[in-house]
């Protein structure tokens, strides 16, 4: 162990770390620790300067282990590992210490304690690094096919993008027709083009594409296998079919909330949602003269705090269409802020006002009230600028409700082992750096399944997700981390406990020279560590998370 030479690079991250933690002090501390032959601090270790400094210092100081203390390994570990490889150092001889997301950012009022914690964490990281061994990545072949779950505008755009590149696609849709939410829409903002002008040509292209196998009235029932090699079971009305794919794109969309028991919905006959209004407008506008719309029904409330982004534009668009059809009709939009953020949205809103759509702001503490028995006859609202309650005559009350996640997102989340976010939509790996993929390799997400999105946003995301999915499909392999289990056959007693525990059936009992031994198929091993923790003989080693490495971190916690 005395020949290990450790280099430590501590990041300021601008003011993000250095504004709380005394970075020079931690650097000086690192220098006092055994085996540390070099330590420096950088303004931004992930910058070109910082990365080249790491690569250079590995050569200059003959470093055999590298520590970077900075943000979080979940975003930047691959980057620094590459910097090590550029200097010829095996990337598994690198250890990341999290002193931003789990230190400076969360102890902003306690700089001394944060600095002390940073020192402890660096000391623990160094303790592990001393014992790290070089490892090799595992290359896993990828089945050259992609499963797209969801046949709406997101799924179809993604499927076409991949199919046009020559890949084989399975497009699975649980309804009997392709098209998703757009089938129920009338016109799209801001072009006012008919929804069918978008969805019908798209559907035709998909159905006629030789590389896309469409399965409607079909659900995904089970997913087995491992990344790049999924065995998927489909269920079409009780009939099962098995397919093999290498990548999966989740494009299952979302649904419009039905505001049961709010403002008379479900009870009074003239209260509908914006989605139901779209259907009406499709069949020709009615002769209602007084239309009141209430926005943010069931959204931006304590029980559901998010903003569904697109509904304001839906309301404004429908208000404009009603006015264009009959300029004498009166349309009021009652809102709690208007989200007109996108390309030309503000211009469209101006157009609505010019056409005579009236916008009235209401607040959560003074909600509008409906008046009427079998039907809503009027809506009372407190007009903030006038400072008094006004009564609006009403023939039709339209409630603008948010997009909410499908109930069965939970099932897909479990089948694919991907995360759901706080509100039940799918959670991407990183909001900024990895917006259309999951933390799990070879599975991607796009469209409203991820978060409420407009049609152009959905299509962009679908292109992005399919572009990312094309990478492993094109390469033909995925490089999986060398974080796998290995068996020391001299120590193995053949008890078989590990065989029973492995969730991936990657271990089997084999006979060697009359002795029963555990044999691990490395390509199937995910490196979870369950077998390693259970092995009574200590025969199983979890590469990169070995017992001695973890124990060294534990022991280094207390000086």
């Amino acid at each position, binding site marked *: 162990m005395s020949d290990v030479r450790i280099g430590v690079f501590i990041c300021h991250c601008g003011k993000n770390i250095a504004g709380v933690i005394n970075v020079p002090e931690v650097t000086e501390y690192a220098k006092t620790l055994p085996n540390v032959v070099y330590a420096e601090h950088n303004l931004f270790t992930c910058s070109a300067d910082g990365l080249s400094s790491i690569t250079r210092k590995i050569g200059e100081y003959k470093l055999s282990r590298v520590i970077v203390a900075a943000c979080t390994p979940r975003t930047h570990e691959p980057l620094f590992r590459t910097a090590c490889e550029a200097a010829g150092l095996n990337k598994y001889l690198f250890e990341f210490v999290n002193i931003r997301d789990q230190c400076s950012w969360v102890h902003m009022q306690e700089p001394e304690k944060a600095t002390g914690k940073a020192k402890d964490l660096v000391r623990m990281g160094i303790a592990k690094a001393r014992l790290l061994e070089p490892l090799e990545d595992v290359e896993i072949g990828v089945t050259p096919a992609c499963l797209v779950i969801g046949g709406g505008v997101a799924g179809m755009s993604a499927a076409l993008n991949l199919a046009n590149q020559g890949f084989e696609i399975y497009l699975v849709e649980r309804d009997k027709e392709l098209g998703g939410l757009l089938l129920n829409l009338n016109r799209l903002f801001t072009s006012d083009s008919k929804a069918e002008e978008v969805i019908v040509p798209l559907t035709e292209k998909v159905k006629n594409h030789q590389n896309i196998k469409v399965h409607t009235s079909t659900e995904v029932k089970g997913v087995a296998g491992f990344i790049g090699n999924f065995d998927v079971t489909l269920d079409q009305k009780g009939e099962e079919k098995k397919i093999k794919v290498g990548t999966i794109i989740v494009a299952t969309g979302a649904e419009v909330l039905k505001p049961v028991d709010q403002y008379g919905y479900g009870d009074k006959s003239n209260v509908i949602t914006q989605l139901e209004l779209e259907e009406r407008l499709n069949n020709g506008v009615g002769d209602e003269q007084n239309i009141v719309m209430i926005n943010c029904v069931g959204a931006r409330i304590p029980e559901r705090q998010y903003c569904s982004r697109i509904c304001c534009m839906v309301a404004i668009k429908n208000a404009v269409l009603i006015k264009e059809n009959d300029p004498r009709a009166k349309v009021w939009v009652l809102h709690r802020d208007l989200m007109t953020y996108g390309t030309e949205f503000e211009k469209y809103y101006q157009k609505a006002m010019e056409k005579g759509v009236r916008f009235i702001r209401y607040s959560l503490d003074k909600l509008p009230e409906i008046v009427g028995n079998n039907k809503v006859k009027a809506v009372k609202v407190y007009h903030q600028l006038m400072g008094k309650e006004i009564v609006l005559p009403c023939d039709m009350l339209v409630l603008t409700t948010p997009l909410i996640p499908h109930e069965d997102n939970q099932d897909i989340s479990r089948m694919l082992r991907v*995360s759901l976010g706080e509100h039940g939509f799918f959670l991407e790996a990183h909001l900024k750096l990895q917006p259309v993929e999951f933390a799990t390799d070879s599975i991607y997400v796009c469209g409203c399944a991820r978060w409420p999105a407009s049609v152009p946003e959905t299509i962009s995301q679908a292109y992005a997700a399919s572009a990312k999915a094309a990478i492993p499909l094109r390469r033909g392999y995925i490089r999986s981390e060398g974080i796998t289990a290995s068996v020391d056959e001299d120590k193995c007693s053949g008890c078989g406990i590990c065989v029973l525990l492995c969730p991936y059936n990657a271990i089997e009992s084999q006979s060697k020279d009359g002795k029963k031994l555990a044999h691990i198929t490395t390509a199937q091993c995910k490196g979870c560590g369950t077998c390693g923790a259970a092995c009574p003989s200590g025969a199983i080693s979890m590469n990169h998370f070995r017992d001695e490495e*973890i124990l060294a971190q*534990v022991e280094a916690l207390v000086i």
Partner: protein
Amino acid sequence: MKKSGFEPKILAFCCNWCSYAGADLAGTSRIQYAPNVRVIRVMCSGRIDPTFILRAFQVGVDGVLILGCHPGDCHYIDGNYKTARRIHMLKKMLSQLGIEDDRLRLDWVSAAEGKRFASIINDMTERIRALGPFVR
């Protein structure tokens, strides 16, 4: 009886896919919590060998926290169920050694639960502070 000025040393094992991500989310959201915890990252809570926990107490750690994915949501399918069984057994053993139940805690934090991570850390810190330092 509370020891004044005692700052608990708490070790938390966090799994890469859920609780470690949840801890990072607390950071991105700038949720402040007690600075007493030191995290060791593992790929799955199922990696935790009970001997790691015993070693932690041996070297003078005051409290140990194991945070994994919620049951049913384990990235490695059922690693967390095995953790639950192991910790349950370990707790029985620890109580026979006279180690207070609150010193070892198993809990579940998802990648979306930054606030929950912070509140578990704060809660654990206060419980250990009330118990006092771990006496070997």
